[in-house]
């Protein structure tokens, strides 16, 4: 049976440090190397950053719920928000030849996680579902 860990924060950038600490601990439990753990921490941080910046447009106090499912083969991470749906263009990795600030988060997420799925529903908000195979 999968182990489940839930972490809920409000959309305050100061709380991203708390999320990073939680993700690092989950990665340690999952047995990832330090190098891979750091990349997963970064991927989750980038996903939460995108929620704060784009779904909630920088508004503080809005809910962000993270759920980690540690199975036999995979680590699954779901990030749920109740903000505005992402624009399709914001979900694509940008061309790295383009040198400009911003837009790197999705690339960093996709380059680390094995599977990334974005689901948006008018009544239940947005979900980013990511999986990474265990070491």
């Amino acid at each position, binding site marked *: 049976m999968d182990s489940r860990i839930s972490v809920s924060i409000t959309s305050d*950038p100061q709380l991203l*440090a708390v999320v990073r600490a939680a993700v690092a601990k989950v990665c340690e439990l999952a047995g990832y190397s330090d190098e891979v753990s750091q990349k997963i921490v970064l991927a989750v941080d980038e996903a939460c950053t995108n929620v704060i910046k784009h779904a909630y447009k920088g508004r503080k106090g809005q809910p962000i719920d993270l759920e980690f499912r540690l199975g036999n083969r995979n680590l699954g991470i779901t990030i749920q928000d109740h903000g505005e749906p992402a624009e399709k263009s914001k979900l694509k990795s940008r061309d790295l030849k383009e*040198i400009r*600030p911003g837009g790197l988060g999705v690339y960093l997420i996709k380059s680390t996680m094995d599977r990334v799925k974005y689901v948006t529903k008018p009544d239940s908000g947005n979900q980013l579902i990511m999986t990474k195979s265990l070491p």
Partner: protein
Amino acid sequence: MNLEIDIQSERDYDLIQIKGEVDLYSSPSVRKIILELTKKRSPAIFVDLGEVNYMDSSGVATMIEGLQLCNKYDGVFALLGLRENVREVFELTRLDKIFTIHQDLESALGAKTK
């Protein structure tokens, strides 16, 4: 507060020393300083990241902005002392080739006078 920033201003350059984590919360403080220095056309801005143990794309974006602003007036913008995990973020985004990266201030100043 998860970030400390010190600025050392000399005649030929400004050194920004950052300690802690650069993320969505803390990167606006770094950005503010870089914007102020580029506004007064600092001839060279060295950003010492030797004590930065975490940087996300907000931090990277701040560095790109600094580089682009300095390039506009032919100023120097260089990063110093990147730790392995921070360097990796620049490598993952293929920006390590765009930035001038030195080990420390001494080597940055040596390269500047060459």
